[in-house]
């Protein structure tokens, strides 16, 4: 669903308007989260839910970043630890460790995968022209996962491409 179509439907002023959310924004909203000391964000429309960490069931011989699968209301959802996938920060499972479950509509199916992050932070509103290209060198996060960079105050938030995140490496 396009946020723009929601904008058209929801009255900006009057009794139904929701306070605190800027519906006039033409850009998109992103959910930001922390990996180590860095800030990352994904399109909020692809976020299915945010769960606390629970130990998943191991998938035999899976890549090390795939922690296993959990039962999310009867659906089997694989859990990928983004910190291992991107080699960022320390991999420990604390009370603040959360799983961001992302759902993406592919051509003929939908895929739901949970990603382990250190903490979720905020919802970020950003206009398209505020998104800057990411430099194509350096860093442990492969370039094709990155949609762009956004400056927030003194910090930089990396926008991740949800479709790229959802692609699964075959087992060796």
């Amino acid at each position, binding site marked *: 669903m396009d946020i723009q179509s929601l904008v058209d439907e929801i009255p900006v002023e009057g009794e139904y308007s929701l306070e605190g959310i800027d519906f006039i924004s033409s850009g998109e909203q992103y959910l930001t989260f922390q990996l180590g000391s860095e800030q990352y964000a994904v399109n909020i429309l692809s976020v299915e839910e945010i769960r606390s960490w629970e130990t998943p*069931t191991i998938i035999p*011989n899976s890549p090390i970043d795939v922690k296993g699968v959990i039962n999310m209301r009867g659906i*089997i959802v694989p859990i990928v630890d983004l910190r291992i996938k991107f080699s960022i920060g320390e991999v420990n499972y604390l009370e603040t460790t959360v799983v961001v479950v992302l759902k993406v509509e592919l051509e003929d199916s939908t895929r739901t995968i949970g990603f382990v992050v250190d903490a979720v932070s905020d919802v970020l509103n950003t206009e398209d022209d505020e998104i800057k290209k990411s430099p194509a060198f350096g860093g442990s996060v492969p370039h094709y996962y990155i949609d762009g960079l956004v400056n927030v105050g003194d910090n930089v938030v990396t926008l991740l491409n949800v479709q790229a995140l959802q692609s699964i490496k075959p087992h060796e």
Partner: protein
Amino acid sequence: MSIDLSQFIPSFLEESFEGLELMESSLLSLEQGDTETINSIFRAAHSIKGGAGTFGFDAVTEFTHLVETLLDEMRDGRRDIAQGDIEILLDSVDCMRLLVMSIKEDTTCEDEKIIEVTAQLEATLKGSDISSIAETSNIQVNNETASDQTTWLIEFIPEHHLVKTGNDPQFLFNALADLGEVSIEANSSELPALNDMDPEELYLSWSITLVADIDIEEIKEVFEWVEDECQLTITKKQIPSSQDNNNTPQVKTDNPLLINEPSTAESTNNKQNNVQADESAPPIAKTTEPELKVKPAAATVKTTKPKADVGSIRVGVDKVDSLINLMGELVITQSMLSELGNDFDLSKVERLNRGLEQLLQNTKELQESVMRIRMLPISFAFNRFPRLIHDLSKKTGKQIELILKGEQTELDKTVMEQIGDPLVHLVRNAVDHGIESTDVRLANGKPEQGTIILNAYHQGGSIVIEISDDGGGINREAVFNKAIEKGIVDGNTSLTDSQVFDLILEPGFSTAKELSDISGRGVGMDVVKKNIQSLGGRIQIESTEGKGSTFKVHLPLTLAILDGQLVRVGSEIYIIPLITIVESLQAQSELINRVSGDMVVYRLREDNVPVLPIYQLFNLEAETKEVEGSLLVVVEAEDQKIGLMVDDLLAQQQVVIKSLNENYQQVEGISGATILGDGSVAMILDIPGIIQMAQNNALKSFNHKTDKLTYSEEVTH
């Protein structure tokens, strides 16, 4: 507003497909010939025609009418049943299927085959009985106006959105035609330029002359459903007889809905004095190219129809009755339990236990009965093969007899639907690659006629479908060399026969020397394998050169539920399908042997069963790492027994299978996952997959060793 006929369309489609299947199988057995069969074919065609007429699928009606005419002649004995006619009828069945399919998919059917077969049918009909054609196409000649009949002039100017509401003017005209003789003029003056045209809008209006001795109310009744959406003027008029003979050349109004040529001016000119009744039987007249002309109009009407393809199952009454019985028992158990709960004390624990046991029994039976509803005899999938063999044998010039066995074996509907195409492919392969040509067969001392046997039977908890032929078999060397050439295997690998045969299931593999349009593009067998695997099944090939090949497809009976044994390895719980388990035992150290290097085998009576520690296979931490004294679950698949080493045996229970593919991917050695009573996820082991995995691992390490060996040999050469 009109009754929404479209809600009945799915049942019409289903019945039509059933009818077509019946026609097809009857036509094939008609080759011996008998009147009862012809009658049943005729009845099937007739009901398709009737149904199509009701819904206004004119393309189907018109085509089927031709078929019916031909069948009618055969039925009345006016025509001998010649082989050529049967071929045409079989082709017609295909065309009808195409037409019905196009209705189902809401597309226009413009297949050349239909035009071709229509022409053939007409030629055949003309050859014997010209009058029946003449009757249908020259109706405009019988143009008479009896003096005592009234002539009605109807001006029908529909609003542009008429067809969007599901109304088809054709229906109205048909209804008028039932009342008396009609002549219809389309007025296309409002037709916009092609660029401005909305294909879903109706821009035409009509003036209709109806000659019939009827009341104005009867005409109004016809237009009742659309009267709010059109301008309608009905006037009564006596026509001077001179106009009857006014033979102004008719503008092509084969179908009043469609004016594809800009003949507007001409048609409006003629409009005033045209009273000819060439439209009195619109669906029948002008049979030469009806599909192309009628279809666009029909498609326009149907755009409003929602796609409703839920499918349905025909269930035997006995199955439904058993469900109702079980329901009754369940209700009794439930009331017993709730009564027990009203004033419960410890003295009633035993009764509670009995009640719970009864509940368990009821639930199980209910579940089985519900599952049985989804089960259909495999003959549904087998039915299409006689026709396929008939066609293939004509195409290839090979004589082939098809033998079907075990047609009553039941199989889950979903499995059945998805196994159809792979089976067709296997049968095509058997005909194309398996059965040799007649002279080769005779030279090899085989009977001239090749045999293909399709067999289905239950084995344990799965169904086995066998496709066997008595053809040339698979040439092991040819397959192996081809595989090396294609780089699928390494020339130094040693493979068993069945491993070599499995190579033909690899992508990009075809040993046929020349490509044919039946099979041999090398894109088939790997897809077959993939389809079968996605159903949780597997395929097994047996072949003896010169004697023939057998393809065995093993499929699970149902995709939904499985009886499983829960086992624990380290902290993980796995489920072993109960049907694969031979026995579970505690390993006694005197029966453990180490053979051929470092393989551990366990002597189980006469068998030496290789021991496979799950923790090694899956790279887990486990409590038991020594075979001595450990728990072994002996499982069997593909005639191979293995002992799975586990830490603990837990409960047996039925589990609902959930796919890992949906959000993840297929995992080697795992057939799926399930959710246990405590909400956690457990993996279901894929026993044939695990055996394969262990074999591959062994092969890898073996090849690794032999690689070094050959290398040193080469050096010494």
